[in-house]
């Protein structure tokens, strides 16, 4: 059993980017290829964008989120190119942060701590799928996908709630 300190996967340099708009899907295609067209909302895929590893999560018809592992310079250049011909806004998220825990820890902790609202289901959540949830009344987007080469749960949380959610996870782990 890991201790609370070992619970979290270090995500140094990890960046969340959002883009959305009428041409959001086409922008995602330009960045990550045609495979993104096969994603439904709250499904994701892992890919490489401008030599950076990233997960791309579809949130709505034309809304996408990227979790970038590595430098963003190349990605930003590609994004700018894609935006030239597309009606989309894009921005690096400064309102939320990502916490990551290994898959095994997530499977143990999240069903105890997180609640979802139908039709979303946490139980049975498959890899490369996400679900909006609440942990201790705080909004969390739970995204199951590989991070740094290992199966993981990524929890995206508003900046002001991050420490609270981390503490909740840590405390539950040590109980």
């Amino acid at each position, binding site marked *: 059993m890991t201790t609370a300190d070992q619970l979290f996967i270090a995500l140094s340099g990890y960046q969340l980017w959002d883009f959305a708009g009428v041409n959001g899907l086409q922008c995602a295609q330009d960045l990550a290829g045609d495979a993104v067209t096969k994603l*439904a*909302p709250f*499904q994701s895929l892992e890919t490489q964008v401008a030599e950076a590893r990233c997960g791309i999560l579809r949130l709505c018809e034309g809304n996408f989120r990227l979790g970038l592992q590595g430098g963003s310079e190349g990605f930003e250049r590609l994004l700018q190119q894609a935006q030239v011909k597309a009606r989309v806004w894009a921005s690096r998220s400064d309102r939320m942060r990502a916490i990551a825990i290994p898959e095994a820890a997530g499977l143990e902790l999240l069903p105890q701590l997180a609640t979802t609202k139908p039709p979303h289901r946490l139980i049975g959540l498959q890899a490369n799928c996400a679900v909006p949830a609440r942990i201790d009344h705080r909004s969390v987007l739970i995204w199951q996908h590989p991070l740094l080469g290992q199966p993981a749960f990524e929890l995206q949380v508003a900046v002001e709630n991050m420490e609270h959610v981390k503490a909740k996870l840590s405390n539950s782990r040590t109980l």
Partner: protein
Amino acid sequence: MQTISQNPKSKIQNQTDLPKPLAKVVAEYYIAPGTAIAYTVKAGQYIQIIDIEGCQCSDLLAFAGGGHQELDSTVTRTLNGSVLPQPGLHRKYFSQQMQPLFEVVQDTCGRHDSFALACHDLYYEDAGYPGHPSCSQNFNRVLAPHGIAPRPGWPAVNFFFNTTVTSQGEIIAGESWSRPGDYVLLRASCDLLCASSACPDDIDPSNGWQLTPIQVRIYEADAAFAWAIGRRTSAEAPMRLTRQSAFTQRIRSLTDNLVEYNGFWLPNSFANYGDQAEYWALRERAALMDLSALRKFEIDGPEAGALLQFAFSRNVAKLAVGQSAYGCLLSPHGSIIDDGIVFQLGDTAYRYVGNCDTDGNWLERVAQQQQFQAVIKPSSDDYHNLAIQGPLCRDILRPLVEFDAGYNLTSIDQLGYFWFATGTVASIPVLISRTGYTGELGYELFVHPSLGTALWDTLIAAGEAVGLLPLGMLALDRARIEAGLLSPGHEFDDLISPYQAGIGWTVAMKKPDFVGKAALEQIKTHPPRVAIGLVLEGNEVAASGQYIYPVGERWRVGTVTSATFSPILNRSIAMAQVVPEYATPGTELTVGFVDGKKRRVRATVGPLAAYDPNKSRVRG
């Protein structure tokens, strides 16, 4: 002073006139006409509000946390994304703190009000009735002992109050839709103090100008009630609650996103997948969907064929046993009563599969009028049906299917387009039909409901290796729009002819006589509108009801009937109906977005089916 009431006293004088309780009653309240009561319920208990005689509104207030939380219709509308909660996914009524207070479990009326206050003194005073009793004052009186401060008007949920919001933003009220015995069944999410009224409004049509009582029953929390919406399919038809198909139990294990469709609970999409993922399974592999909401009728007798030849648009005389045909039931004025498929089961035996319970009544009426010797028997409860569709569906079925002797079929590969046969799928008796609603190679499997779960499990297991997914209504709608397939209420109704809807090819005009022939001969020469497909410029998706204009003109030439983004074409597409002068393929038109004036998006006229217009995939 003697008063003479033109309103007869309530006919309900004793409990025997009341509808039977739905479960063991733990408390029961009679609300006399024009009055209100307050009562408490515990978390989990059920509240049934019954309109005993019909056409009587009953407003409801609910308080939790000692009166600190109360019903908030604005919060409720916002969180549900609808005017009123309904049994199903969006079923909860919320407080101003966004906490659920209660949820709708069953509703047999379907028309209530969430916009207006409970009736109040000012309403009556402005109408010239000072001193008239009001729900709000009645509520003040019964809530005072519970420490709830009075208000001039209470924001309530007004059950059975028929209001609607017009496109101009007016709130229109009219006579209640509720009939004797109609009810709403609610489940308390927490301990509640409630107040219910039998509305005293007799100065407008809301209560049919006649005040009647309301009955409230409380059932224990351990009572089991299915979510259901009561529907009547015709003026005389009995109310029927939403049903589960033979496959619903399995579907519920895979999704909580079910919607009421045509009297059945059907999945919108599935957990872990969703619209696009299910769509791509259909287009590239295989998908399984529940089509049990279709209505089935057996038509038997020496003149069953003659009846269908007269009532159905296709030339049924050309069918052989084992063959089916898509077409429509026609009205005398040449409109579509319903679309569906006729199956020839035997020399004098047919099955009609359509959308409406009333199709059987119509066929019976035509048979009587024309004195055809044919018996029409509804069989929707005897056959539930799955569709397995997609390029790999035949591969899934091949090892499982055995046909009955007499069809001369040894393999599923031999079953032609719009042919069917009886047989088994993994020893489960079925009727297998080479038909579908997706624009892909596909089969529909009709099975007795008792064997539905086994059939679902068999097909899911058999399809797993090739990536078969269950398919919900969202993905199905996307696929059928791509394939140019009609949806009742969108592409046709009983004011639209087959020529306008784009299925003029189903009308066998050479038949000597059939329902609506004279009208259709006139309509055919110049239908008021014709169906077209549109491919839009850009990725914005149009919406049903948006208007279509010639390029650079202010006047309209048509309307969008259905629209979607086609993943396989990577284009925004629409089905539309336009005046014939603008229906030529290649014509450029514009679709009015936003308010119809702010933004016009160019679109090019094409075939109704944007995807595979030659139907090579379904025939393949």
